[in-house]
């Protein structure tokens, strides 16, 4: 029963914490009326020029995708590396197969130009 109580306390804390943070910020803020200059978006101190909507490169997204896949692969590699001695040949071959499948994916992404930055 105490596990569920801990979960309940955790839930209440999760709900209370952001509310408390924002309430504290509101308490200590200067409460004056917002003028036009105060509502401008922040752009490193200079006046914003032009529209805020900008076309950004899709390369960022493609790099993030490929990175994510290999990051998860790394996460799988760590426990295998830790227990490598006791797992034997079967686990070694299995991990080689796993890395080979992902290497095929990397080759595909490379050849199709997903990693090209232009």
């Amino acid at each position, binding site marked *: 029963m105490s596990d569920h109580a801990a979960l309940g306390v955790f839930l209440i804390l999760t709900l209370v914490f952001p509310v408390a943070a924002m309430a504290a910020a509101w308490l200590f803020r200067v409460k004056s009326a917002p003028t036009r200059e105060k509502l401008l978006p922040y752009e490193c101190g200079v006046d914003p020029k032009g529209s805020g909507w900008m076309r950004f490169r899709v390369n960022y997204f493609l790099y993030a995708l490929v990175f994510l896949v290999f990051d998860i692969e790394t996460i799988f590699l760590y426990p295998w590396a830790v227990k490598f001695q006791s797992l034997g040949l079967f686990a070694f071959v299995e991990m080689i197969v796993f890395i080979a499948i992902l290497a095929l994916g990397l080759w*595909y992404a490379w050849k199709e130009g997903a990693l090209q930055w232009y």
Partner: protein
Amino acid sequence: MMYYQLLGPEITVAVLGLLVLAGSLLLPSHGKNALGYLTTIGLAAVLLAVILNFSREAIFFAGVYQIDMYANFFRLLFLSAALLIMLMSSRYTGLFGERKSEWFSFMLFATLGMMIMVAAGDLIMVYVGLELMTISFYILTAYLLNDRWSAEAGLKYLLIGAMSSAVLLFGMSLIYACSGSTVFTEIYQALLAGSERPALLAGIVMMMAGLGFKISVVPFHMWTPDIYQGAPTPVTAYLAVASKAAGFAVLVRILLIAFPPTSLDWKLILAVLAALTIIIGNLTALPQTNVKRMLAYSSIAQAGYILVGLVAANTYGLKGVLFYAMTYVFANVAAFAVTAVVEVAEGNAELESFNGLGRRAPMPAAVMTICLLSLAGIPPMAGFAGKLYLFSGAIQGGYLWLAFIGLLMSMISVYYYLHVAKAMYIGISSREDRVLLPVPVRIALWICLLGTILMGVYPGPLSELTELAVQLFSAV
């Protein structure tokens, strides 16, 4: 010692998929057809291997992966569906342009996902197979890269599918929390001892919701029309037939092994869902003018009929589920094959495009009519035998009202199926040229026609096969 050669089909399909992916990078652009032939031959070889090893059973990795005749039946279903789709898509894949060769590898990965799902013995394995299949289908649905309907279908499928996968996984984690194990047989043992807890019921309901999305029963069916209409027609056919069968296979296995009706009574809720699905699926199909959309709504209704068999949960009902899933493959693939031919010839799949097809392409028109009548459940065709099993099981199980609703709605469904036949034979079109079919499409149509008629006239062999497959559940 485990018989790893029984895992040969999955390994072969995986290696084939990776080979096709590598081949798509290495081969020049006119090598793409070679990859199609390689895929088809590979799938035929794996199908042969599964047929030869049909009755060999084994349990791998302490109950996590279970190859039994039930799993083998569904592997047969998926592989034959994939083979038929490969045959019928032979001209349609020209629309994919540069990305044609990767399409074959995604179809192979989807098949692999389904085979894993169906042989899974625990919740995690089900989820792994489900996600492999579903993500492959997200990509396949959006495969017509320049068509906004395809892109819209892919995005909708991704968003709704991801959310229902999340619900499914949450339900599975609640079941794990209440029973202490993810293996189905161990869940059953753990729940025999304990009492029903609200968390367990919530978990089961969420799991039914997640799987209900896959089989498109009524509260979770809204994705079906848009995705079926927007996706490329071979992908729609595979989705309608194999993805639905895989969802049903998993649902039947989980509900009958982990939560058998003796320990937990889920029959009433599934009966109500089945009734709603049959009614809403058939009624919304009536006004449709796009044939792909009509087939999508009709497949919602067919899912309702199959669910009736699960509700009955006796031998007849379960045999009906498997029998109907298999006959559904042949009838539906033929219907979508003819739709694909019309779509390539005319540019869209509206009812007007089917006008005069009886004169312009007599064989496809005849096959389409026969297969639509099979879906409606008219006697000499296989759909009738399937519905006979399903509704007999329901009546034997005491669900007379459900069988009555099913029969009534089957009668109504004949109307919208015959709409297409009316357009083909009585409709007048301005074009008089013959529609030529490539040879693989013809072969696929002949196989589907023979399958539909033979299984309807002589259901014995398939019936015995399904009897063997559902022996798994009579032992529980």
